[in-house]
């Protein structure tokens, strides 16, 4: 867990702080934040990450486009991606899974749900 470097992508500064604090409490201390998909892709070009947590509704580049972009790259085809969003409509979840997310959490989430989903995704990938 300590070696895992996580990229947390969310346009809401509140959500980024909550996610980072929750991750730290769960033992994930190496977390880098990005404000949207475009910012995240730029950060992925200069830093190596082992896990991505991304929101869906974001300006510049939304989460779905970001995931599609990540998956289209050979380098990141097996990158674990967890989507954390308010969108809970079935069609959205199906769309996100088809785009390539490994798991999906609906906001508001609990710290246990976040930790469990990260562990599940890590075990499965």
């Amino acid at each position: 867990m300590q070696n895992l470097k996580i990229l947390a992508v969310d346009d809401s500064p509140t959500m980024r702080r909550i996610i980072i604090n929750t991750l730290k409490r769960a033992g994930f201390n190496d977390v880098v934040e990005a404000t949207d998909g475009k910012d995240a892709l730029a950060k992925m070009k200069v830093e190596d990450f082992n896990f991505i947590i991304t929101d869906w509704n974001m300006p510049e580049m939304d989460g779905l486009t970001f995931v599609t972009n990540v998956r289209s790259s050979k380098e990141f085809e097996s990158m674990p991606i967890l989507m954390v969003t308010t969108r809970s409509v079935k069609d959205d979840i199906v769309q996100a899974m088809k785009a390539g997310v490994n798991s999906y959490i609906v906001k508001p989430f609990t710290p246990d749900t976040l930790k469990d989903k990260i562990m599940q995704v890590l075990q499965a990938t």
Partner: protein
Amino acid sequence: MEDTKDLVSKIQAELQGLTTSITDVVQTFKKMQEPIAESRQKVPEATVQLEKITEQTAEATHQMIDRVENITKITDEIVQEIGVLRKTLPATYFKNRSKIRDTVNGIEEKAQQNLDDALVILNALQFQDITSQQVHHASTLMEEIEDRLHHLLDVFEGKEGIEQLQSFIKQRVFDPNASFGDSSETQDDIDSLIADMQKNKVKK
């Protein structure tokens, strides 16, 4: 000849009545114009107020997160100091000092409880992201009404088709269905859906 005269006067009377009706309708439209214009002007004021609510709520939330982070940091230090105390004292120290041992254990448990509660408070602050999306949705709906009222005024003033309609709707990113409910049931449904999708993928 008399019949024709009668008919003409009847038509004249009808036309006069019609003219009066049209004048009344025009007057009613004119009367309606003012409150519509007034309502349209109030929409930007309302959206500004809504945006202020979002900004101020975000600011207050960040102040709360600052405090929660501070409490967490201090409580972590207390837990670490208890650990140091335990390591510093000889292993036999607490054997005959059960009251001191219970007090130290109690402090540690309470500190841990504070850390757990701090995390619960922190996660409850997710409401800010969700309510800001709901406010964005409300602002966009109000701007849509503003657009329609503006269009209606253009029709009254005979401008329709002459000027291109100006849109008052700002670009905002939000989920129109964002809600702060108990998401545990929703999460269970999502987990089942994902599990089904993954099973089907394996079968294929």
